[in-house]
């Protein structure tokens, strides 16, 4: 009895430590962003919203945020059809080169982002795409597509293998059955994947660093540039904007499909 209580106490302590450790950086930044001073310190010497006020007036931050959102939207719009169809094809049809195709699709994921970044920079430069915002979204889609495929594949693998047969048996021709049965049935996975892709895209840094210039700089890159010059508390305020975005995405996911599905598809 005492043994198991002791064990429970130890496990509880470990869990509490883990939770604290996971949340600590975010909490520190959150608290630090309310400093009235001109340098980031923890704990802050007082409370003020001055850096949030600064942020609202800083056009470069607002523009960079807007560009990051654009990158997120382009990336999500591209990965929706690409990832969904790839996952369905890989999981549902007996393709001749399924394994090879899977490895090919995971390729961007296995090589360092710096390498991908250089490659994309060369290709985009050749195509004359550099200097625009949307190619950054394309790049984010290319390097993160496996996440989309995994999310959808996890949903597809939960499906009854006879689902399309059942639709056909009910009288639905293949195209009908795809839109009325297959797609809605994997919708939780598609939605999960889309939100992951969006979040990853607006957070994407390394590849964006190589693909952007002063006119197209995205928020993470702008934050990095700012750190290199001088660390002011408005960076902490920017970080809080990111935290809010992430929390909003998770809230949306929970409302739409439920977090249990989100967590399950991440395992898949």
């Amino acid at each position, binding site marked *: 009895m005492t043994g198991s209580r002791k064990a429970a106490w130890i496990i509880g302590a470990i869990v509490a430590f883990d939770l604290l450790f996971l949340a600590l950086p975010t909490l520190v930044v959150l608290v630090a962003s309310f400093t009235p001073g001109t340098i980031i310190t923890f704990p802050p010497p007082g409370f003020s919203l001055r850096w949030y006020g600064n942020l609202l007036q800083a056009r470069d931050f607002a523009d960079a945020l807007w560009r990051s959102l654009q990158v997120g939207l382009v990336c999500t719009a591209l990965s929706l059809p690409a990832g969904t169809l790839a996952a369905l094809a890989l999981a549902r049809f007996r393709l001749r080169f399924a394994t090879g195709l899977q490895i090919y699709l995971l390729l961007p994921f296995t090589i360092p982002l710096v390498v991908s970044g250089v490659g994309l920079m060369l290709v985009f430069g050749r195509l004359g795409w550099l200097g625009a915002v949307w190619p950054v979204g394309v790049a984010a889609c290319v390097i993160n597509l496996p996440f989309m495929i995994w999310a959808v594949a996890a949903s597809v693998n939960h*499906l*009854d*293998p*006879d*689902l399309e*047969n*059942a*639709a*056909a*048996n*009910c*009288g*639905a*021709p293949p195209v*009908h059955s795809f839109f*009325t*049965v297959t797609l*809605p*049935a994997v*919708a939780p996975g598609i939605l999960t994947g889309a939100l992951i892709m969006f979040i990853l895209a607006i957070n994407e840094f390394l590849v964006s660093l190589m693909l952007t210039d002063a006119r197209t700089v995205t928020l993470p890159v702008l934050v990095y540039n700012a750190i290199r010059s001088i660390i002011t508390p408005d960076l902490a305020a920017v970080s809080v904007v990111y935290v809010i975005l992430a929390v909003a995405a998770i809230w949306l996911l929970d409302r739409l499909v439920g977090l249990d599905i989100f967590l399950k598809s991440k395992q898949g």
Partner: protein
Amino acid sequence: MAQATTAAAEPMVRLERVSKRFGATLAVETASFDLEPGSFLTILGPSGCGKTTLLRMIAGFIRPDGGSIVLNGRPVAADPPWRRSIGMVFQKLALFPHMTAAQNVAYPLKMRGFPRQGMAERVERYLSIVRLGGLGGRRPHELSGGQQQRVAIARALVFEPDLLLLDEPLAALDRKLREDMQLEFRRIQRELGVTTINVTHDQREALVMSDRILVMEGGRIQQAANPVDTYARPANRFVAGFLGVTNFLPGRLASLAEGRAVVEVEGTRLEGLCADPSLAPGAAVAAAVRAERVRIAGTGETAPDESDVEGEVVEVVFEGDRFVYELRMPSLGGIPLRLFDLDPLAHPRHAPGERVTVAWRHRDLMVFPA
């Protein structure tokens, strides 16, 4: 089509020499049968016998290599599944997870172009036929296993198909629920009078539910008969072994006249029945006797129409409604023999090691080519 439906004796389903090969394996070999309107047929066989392939060819998911499938007078072998008037209950049910029970049931009506008017009433009527009245608003994952079965049945029947196919939908259920659902399927099938083909490897299910049983093995139909005949007069050794608990005694045919056979097993002559007149004396045969047809007899207690053989008890198990004895038969070359004592409360229990005399009627010994 019009002329075909006029004749009353026309079968609802007719398969003629339907075959399917997957690579080197012949999954179904020239399967032919007729099925009368309103009857319940079970295709019974071990896994890999071709029964599921045959069912999927009828449903239209697999295209046969040869032969014809006629449904309600219309050849359908070239039709895609969505143009066949066939409802199907799938092995894992394949309910649409994003739809409510009622939407699942309404789906075939929508896809098959039924008028919107009266659709809701029809869905509700079928939900109440399967005793799910009031649960139409639930999603499949909010329903129990048995309730999900019922949704699948309603979805398969709501458009009043010519034929209902059951692809082992009961296999995954626990025993009590499975037995309840067997009777439930039968009730609904009789109530609606829908022609049904069921596929299973469960002999009990086949015996309980069917008007007719088709036993398959190795891609071939071994026997097509009603349940009683299938059990009482198996067509061959495979069918005899697949249904019931059957003891096989390997031996040679000593004589055969008018269906009465004498078999010699390790020097012991046994009388039995043989339906295969082509067997010549000396042929290797398997004599078969079912466990419940063998009894333990006191010495000198056997009747003139019985065979009696000495045996030694190896194991005895009490199962409530029966003793199950495992015996060793020294005079039959030491082969094992299993028998059921179906009145365990009235009979003494024979202990392992005890020597007993067992007896069975001559007509209970079935002789097949080995």
